[in-house]
């Protein structure tokens, strides 16, 4: 049964069996993020009198709930009819980096037992992974 339009959980990152419905709902969300990106990019391009944009560089941490593939697709769709149409979106993924505040152990994922593998401390600081930033754009000379 197709019911995405009224699904409150139709959203990226949700584990949900009927994939089609999720993707339809997911797109709505990523589309709004893509539109926010385009607002900023259009403004910056105008400030530099750029008629066209060749590439956009985005930094996206892994400790976010933004899905890079869905975002890339939503961005491509949302660019149509704007000066960004056809530009390349390059997403740099920043891995999650956790640190134990007690012994300075660093890792990329919470250990299965949730405590520091070297000193047993509970609780980590997130050093990296929360980024979601437009870094730069390339414009033709």
């Amino acid at each position: 049964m197709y019911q995405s339009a009224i699904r409150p959980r139709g959203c990226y990152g949700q584990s949900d069996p009927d994939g089609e419905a999720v993707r339809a709902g997911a797109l709505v969300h990523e589309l709004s993020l893509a539109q926010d990106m385009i607002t900023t990019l259009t403004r910056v391009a105008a400030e530099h009198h750029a008629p066209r944009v060749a590439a956009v560089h985005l930094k996206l941490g892994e400790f976010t709930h933004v899905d890079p593939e869905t975002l890339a697709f939503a961005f491509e769709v949302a660019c149509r009819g704007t000066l960004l149409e056809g530009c390349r979106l390059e997403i740099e993924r920043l891995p999650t980096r956790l640190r134990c505040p007690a012994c300075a152990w660093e890792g990329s994922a919470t250990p299965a037992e949730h405590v520091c593998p070297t000193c047993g401390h509970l609780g980590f600081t997130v050093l990296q992974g929360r980024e979601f930033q437009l870094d730069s754009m390339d414009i033709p000379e």
Partner: protein
Amino acid sequence: MHEISIKSDVLADNTLAAHHNREHLHEHRVYALNLMSGPGAGKTTLLERTIAALKDRYRLAVIEGDVQGRADAERIGRCGVPVTQINTGHACHLDARLVQRELHAFPLAELDVLLIENVGNLVCPAEFDLGEHDKAMVLSVTEGHDKPDKYPVMFHVARALVLSKLDLLPHVDFDVERATRAARALNLDLEVFQVSAKTGAGLDAWLCWLEGRIARVKGG
């Protein structure tokens, strides 16, 4: 090719709107709480209990966020406090701009506390600051103790976690200790409460924490 540096957060507009909301709240010394959870974890029921306990001592108001419908706003309305419903349509979370519209319409000078119930969703609300003072999460024992491992961002941004529906604990395999540990692993300062809104067990500790947070803003 010519490279132009941008270095701007994609959510910068939301952050700006959240900052604006924060200033409004600050100006009138109104404490705001953003209550988040997956669908049906018990946010509205916890709010009903919280309102009943606090409404004689604080001037409360509620913003209800839902994809559609007014059911939760009607429940809160029956508690005898002002409530407004935001329907997000397709969006799976509240954002600062949606809340801003409501804030401008609220008589903030006549309020002490604003309780915001976010859209039931364990994912997206975590990314959107509303300008609130605190984010609190509700996780019901029927959802499973693996949720902090599967949806870590939400547990990372919350200041308090209410483990809810504790009266159902005998019927489900929910490891309270494990859920608490998993949630705290990525949030060193997280306060965790065990509550049954049905029986009232554990409510006092939650209310005590909340009143402490309100006092920081009201200076009481």
